[in-house]
């Protein structure tokens, strides 16, 4: 018995760091303030009051940053400094989102998927609806997925009537980029690649168990590109519990979210 307890204790000791490592291993990339460089940590100096400033090393100082925010420090500084408070806070929140469940999921059907070359149809996005179809038969336009906010601004990517494609092409990201048009017509989902058209870029794909269930999740961060796009970020967690399933939004998650970088 004692021996069993000793083994159990040893197992616990061994498991604990593994669990810890599981969350600590999640080190997402951020856009560094001021430079926009791809970094895993950055330093930022923010005003705490009219005359006081403090430097935070993100993500190490996320806790400290949060405390200062709760004290109301985020209202100090110029418009840009106030925006930088929000950025640092968002980055910390994202990290927390990834790390909120320390345990890795038992089943992982996401990390093997090549999201950077994902087929559009595999993703639970809501493409825009062809105007003709919308006018003729609005119900033919697919509804938003449950739990999926209306990202029409983000995804309503439609050509004008005259520019409608003559032939269908494979709708997929290529090296994280899709530029073209995705929309529903009476003939179903259609897309057309156009290197000059607006589109989307997948900035990063992080893997984590964001809702503590048994299936590992992937979190995509995407930005719109092309004329009319804005430097906004779509954080889209996706999950599936079998190889054949389409990706869906994980349940019990505060995300997806569309907002500033």
């Amino acid at each position, binding site marked *: 018995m004692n021996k069993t307890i000793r083994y159990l204790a040893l197992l616990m000791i061994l498991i604990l760091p593994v669990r810890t490592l599981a969350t600590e291993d999640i080190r997402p*990339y951020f*856009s560094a*303030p*001021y*430079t*926009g*460089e*791809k970094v895993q940590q950055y330093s930022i100096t923010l005003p705490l009051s009219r005359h006081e400033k403090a430097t935070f090393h993100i993500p190490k100082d996320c806790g400290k940053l949060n405390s200062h925010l709760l004290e109301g420090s985020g209202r100090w500084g*110029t*418009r*840009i400094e106030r*925006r*930088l408070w929000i*950025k640092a806070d968002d980055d910390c929140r994202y990290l927390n989102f990834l790390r909120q469940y320390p345990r890795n999921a038992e089943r992982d059907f996401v990390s093997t998927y090549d999201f950077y070359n994902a087929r559009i149809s595999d993703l639970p996005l809501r493409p825009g609806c062809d105007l003709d179809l919308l006018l003729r038969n609005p119900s033919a336009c697919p509804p938003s997925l449950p739990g999926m906010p209306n990202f029409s601004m983000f995804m309503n990517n439609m050509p004008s009537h005259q520019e409608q494609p003559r032939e269908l092409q494979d709708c997929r990201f290529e090296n*994280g980029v899709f530029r073209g048009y995705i929309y529903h017509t009476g003939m179903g989902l259609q897309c057309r690649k156009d290197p000059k058209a607006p589109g989307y*870029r*997948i*900035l*990063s794909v992080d893997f984590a168990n964001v809702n503590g269930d048994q299936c590992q999740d992937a979190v995509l961060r995407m*930005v*719109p*590109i*092309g*004329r*009319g*796009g*804005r*430097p*906004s970020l779509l954080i889209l967690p996706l999950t599936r519990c079998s190889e054949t399933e389409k990706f869906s939004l994980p349940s019990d998650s505060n995300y997806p979210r569309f907002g*500033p*970088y």
Partner: protein
Amino acid sequence: MNRILSYFSNHPWIGLGIILFISIIAGSQIDKLEVRISADEMLVQNNEEQDFYREVRRLFGDEQISLLYLQADDLLARNKLEALKTAILKLEKLPFVSRVESLFSIPWVKTVDGYLDKKPYLDKLPETPEQAQSILAEARKNPFLRNLLLSPDKDVMAAAIVLKKTDSPEADWNDETITNALNDIAAELAPFYSTAFSVGFPQVRTEIAERIRAEQARLFPLAVAALLIALFLLLRQLIDILLPVLTAGFSILWTFGFMGAVDIPINVVTSIIPILLIIVGSTEDIHLLSEFRHGQKAGLDSQASLKHMSRRMGSIVLLTFITTYLGFLSVGLSRIEVLWQFGLVASTGLALNFLATIILIPSVLALAGKWQLDGKSRIYSNRSRLLAKRYWDWLWRHRRAVIGFFVACTLIAIIGIPRIHINHNAIDSLGADSEVRQKIELINQNLAGLESLSIIVDSGIEDTFLKVRYLEELEAIQKHIHKKGWSESSTSFADYLSLLNAAFQELDDPVMPESDDIVTELMIFLDHKDVKAYISQDFSRARILVRHSIESSEQLQLVISELQQFIDQNLDTGLRARITGDSVLTLSATNAMISGQLQSIAILLVIIVLIIGLLFTELKVGLLAALPNFFPVITMFGFMGYMQIPLNIGTTMAAAIAIGIAVDDTLHFMLRYNRELKARKSHDSAMEHTIYGEALPVVSTSVALIAGFLVFTQASFEPIIQFGILGALVIATALIADFIITPLAVSSLRLVTIWDVLSLRLRKKVLEKSPLFRGLKPWQIRQFILSGRMVEYSRGDFVFRRGEVSTELYVLLTGKVDICLPGQEGSCNRLEQFHPGDVFGDVALFANIPRKTDAMVVEHSTVLVLTREGIERTMRHRPLISARIFSNLTADLSRRMIKLISKQQLKAKSGNSDKGGNP
């Protein structure tokens, strides 16, 4: 002045000792003198515009850069880039280089995998020609490179070398060291590029400094030679030729000492002062020497000739020195540093030259004046006098035609004046053959140019330029500039945001953000130090930096006016915009310089009119005397208009300086005429003698001045060449005017100098006792006297003769005059003797009949001659005085009539008694 000249005539060794002493003091300061060309010296000093630009520079940094210009077929070939990289590393190590901007440092703002990447265009050297072409194509889209550091369509690129401020505490460099270091590095690139050079304003200033040094050595002997030749041809006296050169030499030494002591450097403008001193300083010397020789020709010995010179010329040279001094000083009224430095140094130099003249000339003449190269003067011969007479006769006969000719010339000149254009550009002044200028022209052809200006747009409200609406205001101004086509490059904060926006949106070309939110999002990826040159820390003030190649001040003025008009009409009412920058300050300096110099000319002419008016106690005389000096000015401006000579730093000085010099001859002429008029009864005779007497000194000084000014045509700076041409032109036209306009203008005038008036004090008692002036106050007497003229007569002279037409009455001031009837064998039967204070000649005048008697001078007399016209003029202008005068005249006439009747009665009585009749 007479006393000073006399003193040094009597104590020559003291004079020479003083000269030596001052020279030793000046010599001790001369090592402090340096050739220094400053960037700010051509700008208006201490004005609000410059303060504003200083503030702009503090906020946004300097506009000016030096460029490392490179041209080659395959610009981005690996070996070329490696050599360039090495050169840039060397440049960055130079102590005076703040930073070097090039394709190796300018960020290529793009995204890589969605993340911002600001690595420079040449962070990695291109591996293939295609890669190189791709980099070039991308770089050409960047407004911070296109036309600035990279030609959009030619194989030309450049590196911008931003220099540290020369006033930084650790600065131990100057333009010359900068130029040499940059040229050395550019030379290392020559084997790799078809064209490789470095150019910027330090190089321009270095070339100017080098030219000044070279020209000092070249022009100085030329000026001395020109003066010597001119003096030799006209004076032919060894001492007379050497003395002006000697006084000029001492005054130059003293002036250099003064410049060293007060830390005024030799620059483009002050560099001409030594030569000017040689030329201008000689004029007083020539007049003094001429008068000295005049005395010798009249048979006086050296000492007597010196006294004669001191008495005749002392006051005149002082006066002419003052007018020339004012001419030079008027240039210093400018707020432009080089001009006020010039004004101060040149006027001081002239004063020192005058000091050298009044000490050295009498001292040397006292010691060596008797030595003459040849004892006969060809000029002072009877033939010359005859020529003077013939000339004056001809001039008087053809006066209408001559005046008509001058009026026509003046009108033609006036028509040409509006054609004058303005150009005040340091680079232009170097001339077409200048290597630096050719390099700059290459930059102007292939890139946006070296000149710059800034448009500062200010709202006064924080974060204004984080709003698209206000960024679009910047964009609108830039679009307007682009549309007008005078600038190939304008950059602003809006451009940087457009680049950033395009990078995030992965667009091919820069695009302005569409909303304020996007701007805010972009701002978190922007470090203010990257855009410090374009936006203030609080985003309330923005700068649009415009590079251009406009060299013509006139064109720049038009462009700026048009731009300001566009801004005034189109800019959002919440914004204020102001155009500033090096170009704008240079333009303001040009305007200030031109208006200042025109003002100087106007002030100088007014001062001349006032001085001459005061000197001759009548403003009209001043105005008439100014005529020969107005004429050259008008001619000069007309000539500039027709010959396309621009108004610049050299040409604007020419008029003021030349007038200051030219008026001397007018003064000499008028003063001599006044003197001759006193000595002679006839205007014609006085004029003939004046022309005869002034011909040599006036022509000598003018020829010497013209020769001296023409020396400047051998300079390599265009404004200095133009200064020389115009200076010579003004002196030449002033010479002609002095012998044509001046005689005609003053011949009908009655000249009374202030000295004449002041000397009346000596005869105050005489005048107050005179029956003519009884009851009049002293100032009323003086006013009346000014309507007449004073004539001196020697014993035996006749004031008038029997039978002459009566047009004058006389007041005897000194001496004695007998009124007599001609007796047998020319004897005089005295009717009456007049003493100082008495009036005579009035009876025939008022009776309007010919003289019935002779008026003979018994002892040397001074007579105040009052003409009928003068009296009538007084009646019109000063009725109270004339009423009193007529009352006094009536009383005097009555008194004299009673006296005459009594005399006749007495005579009759004595006759009767002689005959034994009743009494």
